[in-house]
């Protein structure tokens, strides 16, 4: 009889920090301790707290061990599993409260990171074994599909999704129910359901985590969508860069077929549905719905003009519904728990929860799921644990290369689709990159532009040429060669590209520039007029110098300078024994090695 279960995260984050070796160590030690009959080892999907990986949870206590190494495993097995003594030094205890009770047995749900979360999409991630369909079924899996096929008409399914207020989680926020309703009446010999798992925004990884941690929820949801719109075939378009996700999804599809949950006559209802995986080669533009369908058809991933919309002419010119992974992951829960339940979460026009991938200058990098309408302050300070090293929060970037940024002054904004659009930002797929005072906003805009220039498919001129011109202007500014006139030109070109590009990629590519111009214009002006980078990032605008009175003349900087730009002077400061050093600005490449090596803080950059 199993009395305890050890859950080990097998998501991509923890796998790369070595969770495989930990799993092997557990297997070996549990065997050695003679506990094989009593303790079960389960590999799960992502727990979300990737910053503290590899993560191990022991149930029934719910003890949360973080940053476990293979050497710790013996101790956990011998102490915790055998003798019932929690290995305190490895337990993650940050409850966010001032008083830390060292002896309290903090379980996962009490930690500040999990406490305020509301996991709907991620409900099974880190809880079930994604490669075991029975565990998904135990967690009410496929019950929603059973209910839909035996009790509901397609119209009722669509009505339920419409009533729930669910909007597309891929970024656009189009109402899912309406999308299905637009496609359902269109008659065709073959219709399709497509899942967009081509998660391309730098920093976003919630779709990957759902596919890795709960692949059956996507299969179930796509089958429900197929029934609702009258489609019998589905495709999941997933990036080839997500090997674990692809592997687990394929296992899940095979298991579902074996159980007859995919295939002919599901639940004896006469409804047939089957699902296939298509791998994307990693082009960002293939996340755009029409380009994605073109790519599934076997052609070069280029967008096509809309209308006709995919609901009328999509994949293989047939009526198609395409939704994002996170959108699909909500569907079974909405069917089971009802539209009212879903609509009770969130704000007036944005219902439910949203998953964010926290990254950048934040303590708890990872995945969080919160109700719509949670303030940015709560996300960053409470759940995210704040900014490390006592730095000040400057801005949060959302929506990746298509998004904008939320400055510190708007940190109390309630995050939902409309509020973000109102401040010129966008929800996007949910990447949330936190920036502190050391980040230069012009440089950030330049980074994203470099990305879109690379990823523009080249089909339409405003995007292909326009983004390149934008990037050149930004480069000019960061090199200190810009003029105030450039700023106006920059803005004008942004609007031009937005209005004239063919697809979402070009239409949103200027957003990072526009948002930073709006909220951080003074930083652009500093680059252009004062020829300074206030955050100290843009190399061409920096000069490193040594304060000759603080320098004690140890010479460490000179020994480490890769270009030999630092030399001894004949000046000896009062109270010092050795002469100070100086930097030759002609030779200096501004790598910053001298500054990080100086123990006396004698070197500064401006």
């Amino acid at each position: 009889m199993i009395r305890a279960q050890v859950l080990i995260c097998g998501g991509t984050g923890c796998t790369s920090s070595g969770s495989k070796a930990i799993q092997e160590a557990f297997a070996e030690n549990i065997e050695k301790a003679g506990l094989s009959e009593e303790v079960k080892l389960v590999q799960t999907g992502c727990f979300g707290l990737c910053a503290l990986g590899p993560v191990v949870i022991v149930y029934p206590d719910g003890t949360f061990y973080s940053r476990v190494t293979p050497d710790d495993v013996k101790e956990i097995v011998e102490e915790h599993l055998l003798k019932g003594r929690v290995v305190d030094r490895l337990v993650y205890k940050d409850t966010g409260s001032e008083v830390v009770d060292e002896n309290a047995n903090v379980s996962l749900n009490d930690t500040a990171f999990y406490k305020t979360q509301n996991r709907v999409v991620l409900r099974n991630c880190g809880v079930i074994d994604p490669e075991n369909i029975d565990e998904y079924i135990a967690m009410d899996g496929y019950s929603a599909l059973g209910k839909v096929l035996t009790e509901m008409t397609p119209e009722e399914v669509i009505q339920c999704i419409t009533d729930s207020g669910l909007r597309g989680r891929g970024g656009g926020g189009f109402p899912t129910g309406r999308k299905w309703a637009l496609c359902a009446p269109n008659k065709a010999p073959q219709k399709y359901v497509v899942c967009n798992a081509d998660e391309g925004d730098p920093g976003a990884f919630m779709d990957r985590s759902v596919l890795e941690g709960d692949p059956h929820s996507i299969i179930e949801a796509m089958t429900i969508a197929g029934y609702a719109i009258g489609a019998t075939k589905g495709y999941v378009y997933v990036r080839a860069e997500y090997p674990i996700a692809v592997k687990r999804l394929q296992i899940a599809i095979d298991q579902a077929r074996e159980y007859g949950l995919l295939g002919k006559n599901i639940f004896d209802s006469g409804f047939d549905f089957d699902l296939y995986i298509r791998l994307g080669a990693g082009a960002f533009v293939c996340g755009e719905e029409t380009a994605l369908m073109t790519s599934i058809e076997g052609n070069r991933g280029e967008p096509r003009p809309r209308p006709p919309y995919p609901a009328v002419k999509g994949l293989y010119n047939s009526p198609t519904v395409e939704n994002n992974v996170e959108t699909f992951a909500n569907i079974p829960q909405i069917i089971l728990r009802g539209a009212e339940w879903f609509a009770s979460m969130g704000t007036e026009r944005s219902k439910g929860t949203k998953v964010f991938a926290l990254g950048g200058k934040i303590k708890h990098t990872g995945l969080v799921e919160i109700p719509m309408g949670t303030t940015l302050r709560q996300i960053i300070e409470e759940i995210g644990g704040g900014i490390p090293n006592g730095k000040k929060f400057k801005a949060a970037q959302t929506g990746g290369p298509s998004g904008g940024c939320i400055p510190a002054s708007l940190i109390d904004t309630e995050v939902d689709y409309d509020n973000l659009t109102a401040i010129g930002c966008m929800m996007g797929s949910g990447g949330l990159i936190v920036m502190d005072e050391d980040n230069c906003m012009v440089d950030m805009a330049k980074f994203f532009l470099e990305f879109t220039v690379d990823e523009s498919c080249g089909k339409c001129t405003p995007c292909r040429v326009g983004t390149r011109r934008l990037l050149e202007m930004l480069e000019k500014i960061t090199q200190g060669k810009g003029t105030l006139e450039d700023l106006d030109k920059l803005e004008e070109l942004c609007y031009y590209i937005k209005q004239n590009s063919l697809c979402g990629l070009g239409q949103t590519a200027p957003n990072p520039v526009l948002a930073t111009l709006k909220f951080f214009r003074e930083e652009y002006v500093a680059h252009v007029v004062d020829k300074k980078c206030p955050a100290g990032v843009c190399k061409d605008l920096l000069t490193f110098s040594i304060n000759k009175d603080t320098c004690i003349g140890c010479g460490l900087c000179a020994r480490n300078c890769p270009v030999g730009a630092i030399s001894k002077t004949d000046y000896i400061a009062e109270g010092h024994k050795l002469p100070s050093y100086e930097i030759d600005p002609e030779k200096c490449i501004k790598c910053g090695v001298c500054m990080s090596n100086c123990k006396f803080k004698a070197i500064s950059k401006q």
Partner: protein
Amino acid sequence: MKSLAELQAIKDKMKSKVVLREGSEEIRVVVGMATCGIAAGARPVLNAFVEAVNESGLAEKVTVSQTGCIGICQYEPVVEIMEAGKEKVTYVKMTPEKAKEVVEQHLKNGNVVSKYTISNNKD
């Protein structure tokens, strides 16, 4: 999969395997499992509890877990049962047979098996 009944059958079969992870807080059975407890035979007691709880269909509201030394080594194996809103019950000198009785009487029917509690077993 041809019927909802088939799905339900798999669900019922699997439920006891994943229910541990939901961490029910209704009733907690804690078995002292330090060296003293193990030496006195706490392992079979713990396993008997897990088995009996599952057999009697109580897995969804009862959590069986272990703890370190409770501090009364002469009474080991010691088992504590905590239920929200009720006083903690401590059973001492437990055996697998006594464990089954406690599950049947106490956990299922709500009657404390007083002949095994610490207050009735002081030396």
